[in-house]
């Protein structure tokens, strides 16, 4: 116990003395949360739409003005030909082209239906899908309006027999993207900092040769590892706290559930991440190597965490892989607890898996740490 205390003291002194450290602890979370939470959004707005109006009638102009009125679209100039519009799409100047055919108004009045051509830039399929939905909403709105004006009363009766579904969005009533993203990004921050800092730390001692000096002392493996990891565990908790404060004060993210539960889960989660960092540093000789390996895992973990893309839409095999991803569990839990107010009973499964990971990884780390070659 006393030995561990000496190591912890030494680590804390070294951390505090490292000039780069305090900004990392306090400024990085702030910057990252502010930048990423605002930037990493799937909300599609500012859709750049253009049109080819072959009809030039009051109806066609009315349709365009509908788009102008929508907050999701920004209408740019009209193109004279389909070719001009094609070019603009290719150059990426616009996202959507609305092609209004000739005799649009005449045919609409005469036949009571008509069709429009729409071209979408679908390189980002998800975005194009959303754009299409918005566009159809505007067109449907327009339909309803002109049917009142143009189409006969008996049709009006028919129109009114629509079934309307009224959604109410639970846990995030206003569909605020930040409410969804901020907890997830906080998870990333806690994970990244603790993985990198702990992974680098022991390799650094290898590089400067002090680890050899430690290895010729009668220190026990577990004493050394606990002494090394404890300060970073505390650091992880501090970063979580800083992040939660920022989330609450700046982003107004609700914390519906028990905040103690978040800390409890993080306590176990950090053991997993620190164990991993240590495991990496046992198998590397330089800080660069450790950094590369840590990055490799980080990228896979982030992309497969459900933070940016829902796990449910991954293929089956990928979903199975995510079961090994600690970030996945933390993202789930922090969203559940902060936004839904889930209790310990609801996150028991995630909690169990994390505890299991923590035991396995730390056992591996202690086992793979060799005082003797």
């Amino acid at each position: 116990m006393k030995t561990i205390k000496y190591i912890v003291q030494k680590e804390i002194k070294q951390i505090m003395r490292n000039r780069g450290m305090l900004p990392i602890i306090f400024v990085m979370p702030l910057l990252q949360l502010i930048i990423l939470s605002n930037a990493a959004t799937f909300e599609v707005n500012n859709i750049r739409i253009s049109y080819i109006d072959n009809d030039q009638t009051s109806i066609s102009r009315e349709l365009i003005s509908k788009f102008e009125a929508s907050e999701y679209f920004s209408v740019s100039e009209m193109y004279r030909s389909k070719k001009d519009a094609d070019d603009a799409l290719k150059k990426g100047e616009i996202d959507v082209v609305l092609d209004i055919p000739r005799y649009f108004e005449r045919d609409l009045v005469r036949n009571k239906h008509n069709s429009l051509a729409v071209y979408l830039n679908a390189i980002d399929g998800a975005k194009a899908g959303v754009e299409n939905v918005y566009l159809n909403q505007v067109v449907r709105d327009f339909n309803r309006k002109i049917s009142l004006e143009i189409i006969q009363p008996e049709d009006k009766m028919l129109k009114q027999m629509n079934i309307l579904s009224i959604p109410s969005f639970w846990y995030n009533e206003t569909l605020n993207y930040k409410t969804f993203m901020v907890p997830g990004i906080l998870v990333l921050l806690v994970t990244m900092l603790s993985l990198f800092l702990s992974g680098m730390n022991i390799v650094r001692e290898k590089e400067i040769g002090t680890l050899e000096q430690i290895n010729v002392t009668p220190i026990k493996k577990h004493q050394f590892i606990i002494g090394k990891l404890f300060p970073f565990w505390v650091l992880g908790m501090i970063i979580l706290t800083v992040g939660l404060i920022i989330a609450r004060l700046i982003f107004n993210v609700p914390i519906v559930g028990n905040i103690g539960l978040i800390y409890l889960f993080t306590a176990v989660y950090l053991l997993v991440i620190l164990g991993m960092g240590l495991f990496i540093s046992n198998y590397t000789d330089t800080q660069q190597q450790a950094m590369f390996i840590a990055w490799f895992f980080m990228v896979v973990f982030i992309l497969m965490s459900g933070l940016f893309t829902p796990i449910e839409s991954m293929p089956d095999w990928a979903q199975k892989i995510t079961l090994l991803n600690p970030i996945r569990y933390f993202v789930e839990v922090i969203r559940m607890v902060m936004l839904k107010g889930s209790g310990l009973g609801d996150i028991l499964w995630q909690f169990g898996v994390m505890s299991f990971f923590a035991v396995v990884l730390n056992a591996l780390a202690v086992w793979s740490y060799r005082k003797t070659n």
Partner: protein
Amino acid sequence: MEKEKVVEVNELTKKFGDFTAVDHISFDVYKGEIFGFLGANGAGKTTAMKMLIGISNPTSGEARVSHFDVHHQAEEVKKNIGYMSQKFSMYDDLTIRENIKFFGGIYGLSRKHIKEKTANLIEELQLQEVADSLVGSLPLGWKQKLAFMVSLLHEPRIVFLDEPTGGVDPITRRQFWELIYAEANKGTTIFVTTHYMDEAEYCDRVSIMVEGKIEALDTPKKLKQSFKTDSMNGVFLKLARNVE
């Protein structure tokens, strides 16, 4: 009178794949002796020393340090030895006092004991004015003297020094050897590797390793006689030249 053997090495061997770094070496080191462990770069000195301090497992043969087997009782060995590596291995970002406290602490010295040791050490090396400055800011010679004294904090029976005076000026080297003599006079055994042949002359006995084997082992005086030369430098060159 039979002297106590602090190090007993018998047919100790270390292979890395096909390469034999240390090839069946055998020797003893006695209590209170200054034992010089010489050899050209790559002769296997450091590898042999790493086995003796319990951070490298021998491929075959055995060695006992302070009566403990280095292979099977490595942790017991570690309680009884001090070690100072080629690379300066104290923490640059800790002060002198903090380094002493840390190393004293992990060797299990009591708080009171650490305090005493710190005071003595700072006084002996006359480091009063820099005791609270970071070790990284000290000149290399000071750092090495400090590292030597720190390796003695837990009063080991034997201390292993791996090229302790690499890269320092002759005056500092002289001072360093005065510290070594003082410690040997207290009964501590000194096991030292070096590239400086004048330092070899200061040793009680010297062994010279060539390509993993010990080719010569005796007092500097006898070595010079049997190789018919007037300096250790001559002995070393004759042995090394035989290889080519």
